[in-house]
């Protein structure tokens, strides 16, 4: 039963990043800040990419051979962050699973269970394939879940997410239906709303605005005191990995609860206004940390 000091001082948990774009690069800075994580490799497919160049400059091992390069490592990572594309992740997933490497999926491939760390991170922290859904879901599902915990019945949730045009890449632009559909599904499945609707708005204003979300919920049997407590608790849980997550409200109007939210990013590599991208890289690293914690507990 003794918590042997050799066991509690863990060797670093080896992780890898697939992809070398903006998301991957932001992720790299966040991983490098985590003492419990060791970045084994950043695997891109473009040797000239800025991401790989930056990684190499920071002493991170890099490869331009994608997942093949990753599998050439002498010691394989225990977890991979995949920030490539949905199609690429569908190809990567079986290979990673076969090698028993856990996968945190930042693409829209949606293979594993939907995970929002502040809501159901604990439940899924040992899963081998995690799906981070969408940036809008990462920002809004915690608030919907908080409202649900203070009400007997969460009939309906609706979210309006406004993001800076400059932070929305071609993948999302060409699949905006899929983006709203997945977000809606997460509001229902993880957020606990009986029915939901997700709306996304792109704003090209200059300077680019921070990600903004409005959450509307229709509830029965609301405990107003409990609502304040649940919201505060949830905001703190998200702020643990996204310090720039802020909420105004609630506004109560009959059965309707309204919350206003802003997500300012940490500005690691992505600009601060791109809180929508920051919240998903931060959520990914959060899940890796949770996994380390789970491993430590399992070994005690």
């Amino acid at each position: 039963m003794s918590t042997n000091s050799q066991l509690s001082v863990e060797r670093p948990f080896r992780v890898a990043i697939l992809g070398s774009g903006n998301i991957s690069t932001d992720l790299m800075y966040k991983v490098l800040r985590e003492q419990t994580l060791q970045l084994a490799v950043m695997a891109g497919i473009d040797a000239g990419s800025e991401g790989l160049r930056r990684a190499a400059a920071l002493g991170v091992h890099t490869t331009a051979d994608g997942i093949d390069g990753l599998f050439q490592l002498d010691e394989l990572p225990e977890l991979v962050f995949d920030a490539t594309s949905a199609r690429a992740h569908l190809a990567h997933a079986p290979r990673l699973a076969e090698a028993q490497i856990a996968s945190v999926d930042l693409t829209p491939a949606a293979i594993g269970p939907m995970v929002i760390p502040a809501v159901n991170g604990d439940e899924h922290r040992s899963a081998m394939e995690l799906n981070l859904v969408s940036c809008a879901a990462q920002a809004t599902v915690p608030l919907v879940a908080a409202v649900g915990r203070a009400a007997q019945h969460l009939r309906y949730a609706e979210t309006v997410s406004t993001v800076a045009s400059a932070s929305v890449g071609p993948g999302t632009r060409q699949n905006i239906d899929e983006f709203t559909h997945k977000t809606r599904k997460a509001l229902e499945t993880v957020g606990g709303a009986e029915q939901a609707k997700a709306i996304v708005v792109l704003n090209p204003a200059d300077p680019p605005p921070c990600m903004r979300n409005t959450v509307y919920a229709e509830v029965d049997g609301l405990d107003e005191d409990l609502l304040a407590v649940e919201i505060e608790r949830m905001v703190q849980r998200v702020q643990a990995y996204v310090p720039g997550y802020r909420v105004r409200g609630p506004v109560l109007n009959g059965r309707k609860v309204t919350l206003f939210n802003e997500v300012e990013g940490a500005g690691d590599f992505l600009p601060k206004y791109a809180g929508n991208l920051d919240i998903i890289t931060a959520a990914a690293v959060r899940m890796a940390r949770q996994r380390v914690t789970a491993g430590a507990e399992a070994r005690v």
Partner: protein
Amino acid sequence: MEPVAGTRINYLDTSLRDGSHAVEHDFSPEQVRHVVGGLSASGVRYIEVGHGAGLGGSSLLQGRGSYSNTELFDAASEVIGDATLCTLMLPGVGVMDEVREAVEHGVGGVRVATHVTEADVAEQHLQLCRDLGLRTFGFLMMTHLATPEVIAEQARIMAESGAEVVYLADSAGYMTEQGVRDRVAAVRAAIPVEIGLHAHNNLGLSVSNSLAAIDEGASFIDGSLGSLGAGAGNTPGEVFSVVTKRIGLETGIDEWQLMDVAEDEVRPLMRFPQVIDRTSLVLGYAGVYSSFLLKAKAAAARYGVDAGDILMEAGRRGAVGGQEDLLEDIAYTMAQDREVPVGATR
């Protein structure tokens, strides 16, 4: 210059879609039947129906429709004759399944709308509309915010994705004649696509701006009867049809009959006079999305702040269509920041 006599113009009536904003999305199937029947009998060939925010627009954000879009489409289909039943969709709000569903309920034309710089979010939707054999329109909103060159490029994206007509929407009713001319001319010079103008009357320029657009080569003009629409409303369709008659443009519309529809069917539906009040003027002056008007007034009343101040702040932040949620946030924040509580001595 005035458009040349004999020019053929397509008039698209949006009384029953943009007008939905002005009645808080409360049109009934019965009302739709009366108006659509009248429009079709007057010779209007394109009739837009639906929630103000289009497919999927019924929401807490925009206001729930008293009837579903499909119920309204069914009512319109019964009486529309050989005119084309149109509707609107905004990618990010509506989804492609709703386009397919609309087609099953008689819709034959869809206008796929994006903010003026974001046309690439509509590529899939425009393609789908073409594949379904629909009359396919691209619809660029808030065109006053972009330069003619940017608009031409965005129109090209829409045309290449399947749009047969690209509309320039002056969603804020902000533009004056030269702004309209420069933008229509830029699209016309860049690509071979039909061009439309959707105006709002916040500065009282909708009819003259529509004529300017035609003079520059636009062949589709939106209007609504009695101006019924967001903000101060749209180009008044019955006025436009009389003006076009006077200068000899061909719309195929019986303007006398259209006047009757405006007077007898549409005006009785109005909840308040569709005029250019001071808040609509703020929209036009500050360049703010017209459907923000009633939401700003509601938030102003609820939080005891000024609707004009809310709209000016929304304009300052560069709010785009769909950001109606921001108005309450602004009002809420203003009320929180206010040192003196509502009702205290002045």
